[in-house]
């Protein structure tokens, strides 16, 4: 869908040339959510702006949906850019226009008739969940609502690609989640390819399928989000993975076990530490009829034994597994069977 080949970007500054990107190759597949993570100054902003040619590459080729954008003139580019929506960290809405007028803006640029514009704007307002705010001005909206307007505006011309430039970096965690959810829904329902740049591993983990780690102008690591999380190779990747709280990593590990063992049951045992529960654990682990794998163990000693949680994968015949679970439950251990 998107292919950058041997792309270089050098800025000429008064202090001499500055290399923003050095020989970068990148391929984004149709319909996926592709994340690029990097610290500020790594070249993320330049990279995302190369995709719609807001920045011209010094060298190399940019191809989007079969068109070589880097070979086009400014005028031809104006047309092709309508295929590529973009949203921004600071939303970049026109404050002089209402929500509806902001969303209609790209449709006006395409020369759509007034009736068609109105109809399309109504659809988009519904799509992003801004019903009732059509005649509000941006200054009357919250950050999350502004970004929804930005998303609606970016989708107005039915683009094949959506570029997200730090789209959630100015939002609080709860709003971030709701915007990420919206992006993920749009990706699924419209089949639109999404490229996002961020400095937060949380965002990558939440919605991306694949990720590239950008450092000093080149991609140092690339792969599926799962693989990057579970076995980061480069030091910088490890730093980013470390950003994400432990429970989240646990969650990924559990999901990974889940998908590898569709027949197994994953259970979470909660020990309250009030009585000695060691015998119960012993019995479960030594049960010859089932096979138990310890996925997560977070136990701490207490006066009468230990407290905390164990996450286990139990394989075996369905009935045997169920009776083992019933058994341990009867020994006053709280058991939670995780949905598969």
């Amino acid at each position, binding site marked *: 869908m998107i292919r950058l080949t041997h792309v270089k970007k050098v800025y000429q500054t008064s202090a001499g040339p500055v290399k923003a990107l050095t020989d970068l190759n990148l391929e984004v597949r149709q319909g996926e959510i592709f994340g690029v993570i990097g610290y500020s100054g790594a070249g993320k902003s330049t990279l995302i702006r190369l995709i719609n040619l807001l920045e011209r590459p010094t060298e190399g080729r940019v191809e989007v949906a079969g068109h070589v954008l880097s070979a086009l003139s400014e005028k031809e580019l*104006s047309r092709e850019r*309508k295929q590529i929506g973009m949203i921004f960290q600071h939303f970049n809405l*026109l404050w002089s226009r209402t929500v509806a007028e902001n969303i209609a*803006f790209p449709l006006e*640029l395409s020369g759509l008739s007034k009736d068609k514009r109105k109809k399309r704007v109504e659809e988009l307002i519904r799509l992003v969940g801004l019903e009732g705010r059509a005649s509000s001005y941006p*200054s009357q909206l919250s950050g999350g609502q502004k970004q929804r307007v930005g998303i609606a505006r970016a989708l107005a*011309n039915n683009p094949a690609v959506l570029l997200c430039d730090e789209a959630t970096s100015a939002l609080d965690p709860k709003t971030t989640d709701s915007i990420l959810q919206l992006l993920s829904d749009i990706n699924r329902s419209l089949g639109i390819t999404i490229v996002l740049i961020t400095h937060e591993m949380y965002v990558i983990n939440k919605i991306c399928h694949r990720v590239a780690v950008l450092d000093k102008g080149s991609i140092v690591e690339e792969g599926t989000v799962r693989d990057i999380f579970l076995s980061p190779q480069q030091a910088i990747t490890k730093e980013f993975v470390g950003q994400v709280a432990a429970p989240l990593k646990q969650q990924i590990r559990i999901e990974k076990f889940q998908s590898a063992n569709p027949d197994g049951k994953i259970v979470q045992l909660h020990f309250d530490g009030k009585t000695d529960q060691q015998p119960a654990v012993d019995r479960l682990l030594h049960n010859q009829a089932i096979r138990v794998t310890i996925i997560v163990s977070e136990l701490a000693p207490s006066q009468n034994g230990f407290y905390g949680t164990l996450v286990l994968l139990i394989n075996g015949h369905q009935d045997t597994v169920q009776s083992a679970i019933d058994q341990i439950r009867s020994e006053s251990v709280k058991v939670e069977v995780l949905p598969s």
Partner: protein
Amino acid sequence: MNQLFPHVDWMGMLTATGQTLYMTLVSGVFTFIFGVILGLVLFLTAKGGLYENAITYRITSSFVNIFRAIPFIILIILLIPLTVLIIGTMIGASAALPSIIIGASPFFARLVEIGLHEVDKGVIEASQSMGATRFQIIWKVLLPESLPSIISGMTVTLIALIGNTAMAGVVGAGGLGTLAYNDGFEANNNDVTFVATIIILVIVFIIQFIGDIIARRVDKR
């Protein structure tokens, strides 16, 4: 009234007020048009602008600076040949227009330029990402987004312009300036000068008031 201002010819005062308003409004319209165009040229051809062009920028900028630096009363005299060429005479309200417009446009152009610089660069970038042409960016983004600044700038310019019409009055343009100078100052009728001043103040207040209201109404920031 006649006892309070014994020397005031009220019909003459009315005619003079009409002439002042005429000069203000006509030169206001032209100053607005030229100022916006010059302001756009300055903004667009500057470094990093949409039509970056060092030569055009430098020429426009020098032109603006020179005409802004010349004192208005000298400008009127310097522009006499041009005025005669355009209007056919150098006496009367219409004859004052070229120098008033040429004196005020560069000033307003700088205010427009400042207003355009206040437009968020991100919004321009967003418009480019949506495939807007440069003309669409000017017409649909730059001008609407800087409208409150342009209107405030126009209010300030109009008020400065009234001052200039009064000054032009001294060299024969007519209007309240001529009246205050000839019938008031020269004839030593202080009441005439006083009434002319009050009328000018009222016009200034009204313009400021209307300007503020419009600026506030279009400002949705």
